């Protein structure tokens, strides 16, 4: 059994191994149903018999059997066989003939069903091939079996003579075939899935069927040959309802015609049996064929149309979808185009900005594609080199042609080294000079980066070039000015015992150039100290150099002139002939011994006095116009003030008190408040003032000079001085101040002072020639006496020789011993120590005058 056979068997009978109780019942029911239907149909069919009693022109049971086998499978054959036997027994000559006929009648539908299944017959008969199959295979071919068996049996059993075999066979064959053609489609249609037709369609179907029946009955009841009139109605119903309408209509028409033929009505009134037979069978065949084929054709056409429509609609869908996709894609594309356009515009904008920025910053950029030796310059590159932008195509050699020989050699050497390294890297920044076509020289700063290929060969170099000519010039000027100014400000302040000094200089942050502020402290020969603070209007090299000249001039005048007003007056005359600038200045002389200060002010902010008790006041006297402001000023005036121990004096330039958006008076008031703590360390005070007064950026230079008088005699006095005659006066002044502060009697002060002076002079004289010689002095108050120690690094020469020094030395020794209670000289290779002592007690009875 092949696979195909198995499928066939299954299609026809199912799997016999799975027959259980209920299945058996169902099977029996089917067998009984089929058998019953067959039998009833046979009885009805026999009424239509034309020959004897068992040859009928339309034999419905065959159609029932074929339909049953197609619907239930061939296993219901017992129903068919038994019913056939039951039908034939009474009309056959004997039992054997009935059995033979029944066998033929059973076998023929089975073969028909098998053949139909084999060719893939569809029970809906909705294709032309199905119609062809049922006509030719099931009806005409398969019924040869039953006709041959049946007609043969009739002859053999003697029911009809052998001469009547052909006509008997033909009637049998056509009867069975018509039964298949007319009944099977109808039955198959009944077992289709339920029809979902609307009420209107159902009504129309019924009306049409009724019409067919009526027309059939009418044409059968007239003598006229009008049977063909049925056909258009069959066509109509087949067109409207296909097999669903055609099969019942055909059955109706065939049944009515057969009935009419059997009863000799209408068209069948005349003629021989054969003629009637021919007429009926041709009519039935026409009815069956036309309804079957027409219905199948219409169905097929409809399906084709539907398929076409479906395809068309699908196509339409697909087109719509594709169109939508295309539209989306198009939109996206348009968006992209717009975006690209936008990006392009932005890029061009940025390029424009870049060019502007490059022009403003005087920075150009370049690219060198090394294998092709093609160089591209930005517009600014051309401008830096003195050309119009994009004036000519470039190569490396062309690009460096303006570079000076020395620089070009260096650049080429650097380049060669860089190209040989075989990896991406930044070249060190390089400064070089070019000479433009018009002869002007520019200083450029170049930076570059090299990119290499996978095997290390140089591919591309990019870089920037900045025109730093102006920067270099400004930098040079700034450096000079700064150096100048730094060299002009005192690098250290003199050390004066009992006097604290502190100074600050803060250059303006916003201005890269230096300003013209200055301060100075000069130690004067008489032990006083000169303080100057000034401000040359303007900035830069010229202000700095003016300031330098004025500072030197002021120093010279300060050493010559005793009074501050005279010093300021002389500087004023100098400014008038020397410099075109406006200058403000305060010159002040302070005597540490007495605490007296005198000053003259040429248009400068007044000094601030902070007394020991915290009281603050600006010293506003002694004011004259700024230097250079008027051509014929009145003589400068000076005023005096007193600085007690613990008092502080602040000199400053306007940068400290001037602030944008605030009046100078506010600044002065603020400074007064901030400086009011007299106990604050002087250095701390300066820092504090700068921090507090200068909150934002320094818009102008600031110079600040602070002086504080402090008590000397709070303890022993220790001094160290260079061994130079110039220190004698300040040294005596300090000693005098100390002695006064310890309340020594004036006569004793003078005595000790002379003795000390002699000892100092000796120390200085001994140290003559010694480089950077120093000597140390200490004064200690001990048991009501002053103990003075002078230590030097020279050698003591007690015996006077001849000449001035010897004479002075001798006199000095005598004086020392006469003035002091004791004088002790210890001389050694490391130096000499002189110790002297003098009681502070005034001894009127001391006969010092008689010492000699």
């Amino acid at each position, binding site marked *: 059994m092949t696979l195909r056979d198995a499928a066939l068997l299954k299609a026809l009978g199912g799997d016999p191994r799975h027959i259980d109780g209920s299945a058996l019942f169902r099977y029996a029911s089917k067998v009984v149903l089929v058998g019953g239907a067959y039998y009833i149909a046979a009885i009805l069919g026999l009424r239509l018999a034309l020959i004897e009693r068992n040859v009928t022109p339309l034999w419905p049971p065959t159609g029932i059997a074929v339909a049953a086998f197609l619907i239930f499978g061939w296993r219901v054959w017992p129903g068919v066989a038994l019913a056939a036997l039951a039908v034939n027994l009474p009309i056959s000559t004997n039992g054997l003939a009935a059995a033979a006929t029944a066998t033929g009648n059973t076998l023929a539908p089975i073969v028909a069903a098998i053949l139909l299944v084999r060719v893939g017959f569809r029970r809906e008969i909705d294709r032309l091939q199905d119609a062809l199959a049922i006509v030719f295979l099931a009806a005409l071919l398969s019924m040869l079996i039953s006709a041959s068996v049946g007609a043969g049996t009739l002859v053999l059993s003697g029911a009809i003579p052998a001469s009547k075999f052909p006509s008997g066979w033909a009637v049998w064959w056509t009867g069975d075939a018509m039964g298949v053609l007319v009944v099977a489609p109808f039955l198959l249609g009944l077992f289709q899935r339920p029809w979902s037709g609307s009420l209107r369609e159902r009504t129309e179907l019924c009306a049409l069927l009724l019409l067919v029946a009526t027309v059939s009955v009418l044409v059968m009841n007239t003598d006229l040959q009008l049977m063909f009139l049925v056909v258009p109605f069959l066509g109509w119903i087949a067109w409207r309802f296909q097999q669903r309408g055609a099969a019942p209509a055909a059955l109706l028409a065939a049944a009515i015609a057969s009935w009419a033929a059997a009863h000799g009505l209408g068209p069948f009134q005349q003629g021989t049996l054969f003629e009637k037979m021919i007429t009926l069978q041709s009519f039935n065949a026409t009815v069956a064929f036309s309804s079957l084929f027409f219905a199948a054709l219409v169905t097929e056409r409809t399906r084709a149309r539907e398929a076409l429509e479906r395809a068309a609609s699908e196509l339409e869908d697909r087109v719509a979808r594709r169109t939508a996709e295309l539209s989306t894609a198009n939109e996206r594309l348009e968006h992209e185009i717009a975006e690209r356009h936008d990006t392009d515009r932005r890029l061009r904008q940025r390029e424009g900005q870049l060019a502007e920025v490059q022009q403003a910053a005087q920075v150009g950029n370049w690219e060198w594609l090394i294998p092709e030796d093609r160089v591209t310059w930005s517009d600014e590159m051309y401008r830096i080199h003195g050309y119009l932008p994009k004036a000519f195509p470039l190569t490396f050699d062309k690009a460096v042609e303006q570079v000076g020989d020395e620089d070009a050699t260096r650049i080429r050497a650097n380049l060669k080294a860089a190209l040989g390294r075989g990896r991406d890297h930044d070249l060190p920044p390089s400064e070089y000079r070019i000479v433009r076509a018009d002869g002007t020289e520019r200083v450029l700063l170049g930076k570059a980066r090299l990119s290499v290929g996978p095997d290390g060969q140089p591919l591309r170099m990019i870089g920037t070039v900045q025109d730093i000519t102006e920067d270099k010039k400004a930098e040079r000027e700034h450096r000079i000015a700064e150096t100048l100014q730094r060299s002009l400000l005192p690098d250290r302040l003199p050390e004066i015992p009992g006097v604290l000094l502190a100074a600050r200089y803060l250059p303006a942050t916003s201005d890269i150039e230096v300003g013209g502020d200055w301060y100075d402290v000069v130690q*004067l*020969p*008489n032990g*006083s100290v*000169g303080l100057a603070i000034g401000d040359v209007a303007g900035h830069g090299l010229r202000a700095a150099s003016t300031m330098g000249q004025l500072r030197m001039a002021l120093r010279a005048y*300060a*050493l010559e*002139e*005793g*009074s501050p007003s005279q010093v300021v007056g002389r500087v004023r005359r100098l400014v008038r002939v020397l410099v075109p600038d406006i200058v403000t200045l305060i010159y002040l*002389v302070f005597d540490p011994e007495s605490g007296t200060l005198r000053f003259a002010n040429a248009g400068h902010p007044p000094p601030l006095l902070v007394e020991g008790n915290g009281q603050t006041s600006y010293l506003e006297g002694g004011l004259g116009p700024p230097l250079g402001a008027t051509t014929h000023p009145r003589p400068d005036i000076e005023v005096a003030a007193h600085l007690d121990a613990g008092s502080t004096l602040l000199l400053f330039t306007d940068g400290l008190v001037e602030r944008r958006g605030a009046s100078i008076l506010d600044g002065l008031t603020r400074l007064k408040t901030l400086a009011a703590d007299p106990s604050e360390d002087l250095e701390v005070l300066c820092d504090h003032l700068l921090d507090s007064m200068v909150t934002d950026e320094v818009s102008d230079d600031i110079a600040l000079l602070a002086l504080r008088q402090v008590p000397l005699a709070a303890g022993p006095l220790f001094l160290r001085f260079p061994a130079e*005659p*110039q220190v*004698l*006066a300040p040294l*005596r002044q300090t000693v005098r101040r100390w002695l006064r502060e310890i309340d020594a009697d004036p006569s004793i002060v*003078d*005595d000790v*002072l*002379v003795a000390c*002076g*002699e000892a100092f*002079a000796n120390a*200085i*004289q001994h140290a003559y020639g010694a480089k950077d010689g120093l000597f140390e002095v200490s004064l200690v108050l001990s048991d009501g006496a002053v103990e003075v120690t002078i230590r030097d690094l020279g050698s003591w020469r007690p015996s006077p020789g001849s000449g*001035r020094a010897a*004479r*002075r*030395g*001798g*006199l*000095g020794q*005598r*004086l020392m011993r*006469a*003035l002091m209670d004791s004088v002790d000289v210890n001389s050694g290779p490391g130096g000499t120590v002189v110790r002297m002592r003098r009681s502070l007690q005034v001894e009127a009875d001391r006969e*010092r*005058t008689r*010492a*000699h």
Partner: protein
Amino acid sequence: MNELARIESEQHGPLCLVRVYGEIDMSNDRDVLTSIEVAVARETDRLVVDLTHTTYLDSAGLALFLRLAERMQARQQMLSVVVPVDSRVRRAFELTGLLSVIDVVSRSEDALSETRPGSSNDQG
């Protein structure tokens, strides 16, 4: 006034009066000596140096006057030095015995009023 010493001079015929202000020490003794000598006119018979306003004078100053006295003597000129009794520099002259070597007077009037021979110890 910031120089250590300052010189003022007046010429009254053959009499030259020089006043020394300030201090004399080793740092300025030569300058003071030169200034005094420059101030003395050629026709001067007598030089009076007034130390009333001199606030400090030590062995350098004393040596200066010894030398000045020698030079004056060599030129046949007379030298008197005015050192008031309450002068801060008087003790230096006293303690070194220069009163016996140089004509020292207590008051300038004494020096100016009378032409006297150059050795007097009257101020004892």
